[in-house]
């Protein structure tokens, strides 16, 4: 019978292969004081991998491993792993997942000097996580169809007849949902519900993603859409047009309007980290000027460290009158989802 043979084959394959994920055949031999660094990244490989390469060049004795996934699912995984987690550092797409881990007491306090490099609203009050880059919610509008004077003063004004059937949103998008959560926290449940209902009776058009909204505005299908700011830079780059010629422009709602929410991507160090030193080193690395410039230029996000400029086509971060929201509160998404479903937006 061939079954025992197959079984033996299978077992030997399994035992031989656990390490096959390591690209570097010499990684097992890496020792010394360099050690390793294991990162769980909720951010896309496209943006993280170039930085890992750079970090490894600067620290050739450190072997960096990155697991990519959804921020919330990785946070759930870290929680199940408990103090045995192989991860040293968690790089999250949003503040919510970091806040959830902080509430579990899984994140280690960062040194004051690290925290102080970033304005206090973009880091944890308890000092357990720090923002790396920011992204602002904006109204992307068609500059051929919308005059400067017509731009709304508040996201609540988009329910006016002027905008009937002309605005796009992406109700399934996480950034949009964070914005709705912020609206619930600042304007209250009732007003948020009203806004969601009014937007729909004003024929707001639902799209799957920010980038699709942007293209719909560029194509003249709609006149404006609620998106993240960096999609415009991406649109300019992908269309390879001059920023001046690109029809879609950014409008930041003034006066602390919730429509201008700034959320962050950030990192937290695990209390269980076996390579806390390297994790700390990597955090410093992300906050250093060259990496902040990478995020500003290649991703189009806002650098959070003072002294590094955002893309010249953007207003300075300090000039955005963003609402006063504790970013950790944005972890409370359940109520938002229920509201979106009840009002029929989702």
């Amino acid at each position, binding site marked *: *019978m061939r*079954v025992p043979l*197959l*079984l033996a084959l*299978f077992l030997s*394959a*399994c*035992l031989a*292969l*656990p*390490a*096959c*994920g*390591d*690209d570097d055949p010499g990684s097992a031999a890496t020792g010394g004081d360099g050690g390793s660094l*294991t990162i769980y990244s909720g951010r*896309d*490989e*496209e943006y993280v991998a170039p930085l890992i390469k750079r970090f490894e060049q600067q620290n050739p004795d450190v072997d960096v*491993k*990155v*697991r*990519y*996934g*959804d921020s*919330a*699912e*990785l*946070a*759930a*995984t870290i*929680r*199940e*792993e*408990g103090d*045995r*987690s*192989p991860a040293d550092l968690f790089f999250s797409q949003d503040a*919510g*997942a970091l806040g*959830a881990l902080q509430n579990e007491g899984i994140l280690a306090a960062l040194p004051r000097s690290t925290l102080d490099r970033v304005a206090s609203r973009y880091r944890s009050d308890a000092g357990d996580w720090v923002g790396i880059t920011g992204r602002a919610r904006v109204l992307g509008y068609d500059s051929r169809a919308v005059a400067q004077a017509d731009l709304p003063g508040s996201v609540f004004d988009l329910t006016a007849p002027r905008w009937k059937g002309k605005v796009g949103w992406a109700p*399934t998008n996480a950034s949009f*949902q964070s914005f709705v959560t912020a609206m619930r926290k600042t304007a209250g449940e009732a007003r948020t519900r009203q806004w969601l209902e009014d937007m729909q009776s004003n024929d707001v058009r639902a799209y*799957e*993603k920010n*980038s*699709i909204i942007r293209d719909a505005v560029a194509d003249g299908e709609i006149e404006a859409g609620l998106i993240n700011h960096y999609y415009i830079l991406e649109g300019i780059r992908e269309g390879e047009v001059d920023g001046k010629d690109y029809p879609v422009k950014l409008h930041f709602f003034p006066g602390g309007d919730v429509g201008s929410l700034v959320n962050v991507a950030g990192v937290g160090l695990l209390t269980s980290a076996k390579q806390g030193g390297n994790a700390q080193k990597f955090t410093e690395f992300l906050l250093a000027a060259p990496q902040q410039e990478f995020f500003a230029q290649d991703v189009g996000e806002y650098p959070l460290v003072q002294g590094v400029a955002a893309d010249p086509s953007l207003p300075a971060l300090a000039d955005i009158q963003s609402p006063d929201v504790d970013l950790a509160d944005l*972890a*409370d*998404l*359940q109520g*938002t*989802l229920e509201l979106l*479903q009840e009002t029929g937006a*989702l």
Partner: protein
Amino acid sequence: MALAVESPPQQIRGRARTPSAPLRLVTAIVALGCALPVAYLLVVITDEPASAWNAIWRPQTLSLLLRSAALAVAVGAGATAIAVPLAWLTARTDLPGRRVWAVVTALPLVIPSYIGAYLLVSALGPRGELQGVLAPLGIAELPSIYGFRGAWLVLTLFTYPLVLLPVRAALLRLDPALEDAARGMGRSNWAVARTVLMPQLIPAVGAGALLAALYALSDFGAVSILRFDSFTRVIYQSYRASFDRTGAAALAALLVLVMLGLLLAEARVRRGRTYHRSTPGSARRLPVVRLGRWRWPSLAFCAAVALLAFVLPLAMLLYWSAQSVAGDVEWAEIARAAGNSLLLAGLAALATTLLAFPVAWLGARSPGRWSTVVDAATTTGYALPGIVVALALVFFGIRAVPVLYQSLAMLVVAMVVLFLPLAAGSARAALLQVSPRLEEAARVSGRSPLAVARTVTIPLARGGVLAGAALVFLATIKELPAVVLLSPIGFDTLPLVIWQETTRSFFESGAVPALVLLAVSAPPLWLLVGRTR
């Protein structure tokens, strides 16, 4: 009728009911392993019983329960309604090109539900491609396909092969002597189908429909894209939106109850019937039914199903692939991921088939309380959302076998837990058609039980066992959530690449790896369908 479903003689039944001690031991170990997700749910729930209770004790829970159960039953029924005629047409009639149709109608199995759902929305959505075509006729928007209808349609279209394959295999294995006898008694084709064929197909139909229904319970991709609030979608939201592991676990525990209900219903249908050949004769040529004037409607039916479930999705993928700039495609990355996917799927198919065989044997030869418990335990992983199974293995894996944590071996174990019923159901249906009297005869002639299995049972049931292996292979190669969390770091698979491509920009940019996924799934599918006549 008495021909096929007579009760087996009492002495065989009585003896068959008690599984041997080694079989008990092996199936107990497999069942315990597969029940790890349930153990995990209990750990999490007992951790904070109050908030688990709060998560369940809400007015929405009942409607959620009914909605999910309705979707599961509707998908099982829909898949059966499509699959049984297709199986019969491609196995037993003179349908023109039936071998080609046999392969083509099985192809939707290679399309992951998340891709299928997205493609259908793009094609048939309110403002999809079809609307674009119809726009000159003044149609500004098509009716919404979001919600129950869309989820049902997509899940039915991409799960019906789970019914088609076992039913077709069963039709090909049937003993034509029974049909001949019935015809000799002057019964019409239709009467023969109803009284002879259908009863014998019940185990295959039941097993397949159960798998389709349970898949509908556990699926996240299609229900999230089609915005249908099933259990799985709400469970994912609990993790993603509120980081609420206790609430998610409580809901998942309820989902296990729904699964048990479906399982019991299926077992009830199957109970107390025998399906093996009436005589130990050798396989004979199967009679071919002439379709006559039903030929064209039959062809149209096959074509319509193939068009919706395979040709349309494939055309969309090809169209998008052509659009994505050739220079943007990272062929080296895709090739590496394809290699990893094939390795994982091959190992998972092998391991799952081996471990599923004793479970199938138990269910076929010693049905009873013990086999019911084993069946239920080994089915939980398949009915639960991938993320729950993955987190359960994270929880136990890192504590019990830290050396193997996030290794390929553990990933393979995860696939066994997720997909064992696919292999067990297929093998059991095949075993049920092997007469225990042949085994008895071999025993009487002095062979050991293992030798009997090797020389009699396995050769006769081989087709069904291989079909199960291929099903596991195809399911593994599409699997995403467990791979994200449990794979060795850097072990990218094709679904991971598709997922990364689609999150970073357009879904369209995932079209090339998706086509590669379809291409590498084709050979095992060919083995599955092309081998049989």
